[in-house]
């Protein structure tokens, strides 16, 4: 039988695998200066209808295949298919067309996957480095820490749920303790960084290969967008 705990663990697993799973790769060493216009272009493309959706999905697939992270894309598709189904069902009474609602759902999947891919390839150390360059010395640790703490908390929440389920305890009890745990985690991380926060000097490097690939895909997407606008 499917339990609430199982559903919760499954959802958190999908979120986890679509954003945080996988080690650092050269493809996570591109730059925001390329990746931000890329995600904006992909969102604009996806909102241009089915052709735009196809181009967006193809460019996402190309990036993930080259980076060897197709598993993350698969989980991004699973994750975005949940709101897509919702959009499909709720727009159907207004569009009265299966195809029109399906296109809306596909646009949701494309936009969602583009955003998740952007986050997946975002390197928090670049954000930390930029924050430091902007003079935000103390805040520069937060992007790096977020990418450590979030998956840590998610993994521990799963363990807490599992442990509670095996004890035959109500899920909300595990959730309540998890909230307490998260509160404690902030204090523990505060303790862990207390003596060395001022020593934090984010280091980052850029991967030429990753930047070339992202620039190429950006060029293709911009061209496709212009053609769609002109057409």
């Amino acid at each position, binding site marked *: 039988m499917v339990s609430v705990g199982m559903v919760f663990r499954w959802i958190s697993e999908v979120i986890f*695998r679509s954003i945080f799973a996988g080690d650092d790769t050269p493809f996570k060493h591109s730059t925001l200066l390329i990746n931000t216009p890329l995600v904006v272009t992909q969102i604009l493309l996806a909102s241009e209808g089915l052709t735009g959706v196809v181009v967006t999905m193809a460019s996402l697939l190309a990036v993930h295949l080259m980076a060897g992270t197709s598993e993350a894309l698969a989980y991004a598709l699973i994750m975005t298919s949940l709101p897509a189904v919702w959009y499909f069902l709720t727009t159907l009474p207004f569009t009265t067309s299966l195809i029109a609602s399906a296109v809306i759902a596909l646009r949701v999947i494309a936009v969602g996957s583009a955003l998740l891919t952007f986050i997946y390839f975002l390197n928090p*150390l670049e954000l930390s480095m930029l924050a430091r360059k902007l003079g935000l010395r103390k805040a520069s640790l937060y992007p790096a820490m977020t990418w450590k703490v979030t*998956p840590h908390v998610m993994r521990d929440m799963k363990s807490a749920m599992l*442990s509670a389920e*095996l004890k035959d305890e109500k899920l909300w009890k595990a959730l309540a303790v998890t909230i307490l745990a998260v509160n404690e985690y902030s204090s523990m991380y505060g303790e862990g960084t*207390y003596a060395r926060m001022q020593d934090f000097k984010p*280091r980052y490097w850029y991967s030429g290969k990753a930047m070339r690939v992202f620039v190429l895909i950006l060029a293709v997407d911009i061209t496709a967008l212009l053609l769609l606008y002109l057409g």
Partner: protein
Amino acid sequence: MRVEVKDLNIVFEGVCILSNLNLTVGEGEAVLITGPSGSGKTTLLRAILGIVPNVIPGSVRGFIKPEPCMIRSKAYYVPQEPWFSVVTPYVWSEILSFTPSQLRLGDVEDMLSAWGMSGYAFRTTYTLSAGELQRLALMVARLSRKEVVLLDEPASHLDSRNAKKVVRMVNVLRNSGTAVIIVDHDVKAWAGLVDKAYVLRNGTLDEDITSYYKEFDRLISELSKPQVQGDAVLEVRVTKYRPPGSRKIVLEDVEFTVRRGEVALVKGPSGSGKTTLLRLLATSVKEPVSGVRTNVIGKLIYVPDNPLLYFTEPTAAKEVGEGGVEKLREFGIVGREFTPITRLSTGERRRVAVASALVRGASIIVMDEPTVGLDIISKVRVLKAIVKAAEEGMAFVIASHDPLVERIANKVVPIHG
């Protein structure tokens, strides 16, 4: 830097933790502080750095010289829970972001190799085991070139080979003029290296460490393996397991059976996949896991390595229920039964978690490092309770580095990673 603590008094919510405590640690000196779980060892380290009262509220009176804010800027602190000692997402970023800037990415791999973590530079830190996190934190501590290093149970999650490396590392630090304060239960591991050793009890430091330890050998000798074994209650077969997003197979061809009344010890170097195995085992009871087949007879309870994740009640008394209060007393949890779980020390939490697991009528209990952070007396209490429960028909699967756990284990399941 010389650190001096004079007449230090710390009170948490009306409870006196440290009372007129005095301590001096000179340059190039290593000092060991041991003592019962919950005696205030970690609190002392926190006070020296100013974590108490700046991060954790508490009333502090007395003198710490230089001022904690000054010590903080010249100190490196490795906290007891390894999960919180690493704060950036990748192994390379943790090393390069907190060490002198002349270090290059190419140097990282050499350093990792020296600590048995070859090929780890690009790993995400949340996927590291407690032992691997501990090694990473110590590596950064070593490279940070600080004048004072404070280590809270630095080898608690490490196998004996890596624990010896920690001792060697402290020796290098001491020889380079660093003042090192170590909090640990394992006095023997540090014998011959530290310049001074103290027992912290009743809020003050006592130099008479021998009297504190003289009973321990006798206590340890009382540990024995459970004698009665029944039918098989757990069958495990892991063909292949690869964590999400990773190309590396972590577990392969692991197969074992546990019978009623048996204690199975899952043993292997830190990072070999012991925690992963226990987690998979627990998960497979509730949902299918690819590459893992288990057959469980009866109820299985899982106590994770972080005991906080086990709890579903706010206090120890509620967690164990009416029938379990006696078990808490047996484990030395006296007068703390109604203290919120979040205010218990790690060692106390661990004991409460084990006590709770024992009173829930499970046929199998899966425990990850149940003795970490416990003093010898508490360890022996917990292990004796496990043996007693096993002799009453319970089965145990325990992942641990602790040689004392091996004393009570009927079988060892080796994990090589």
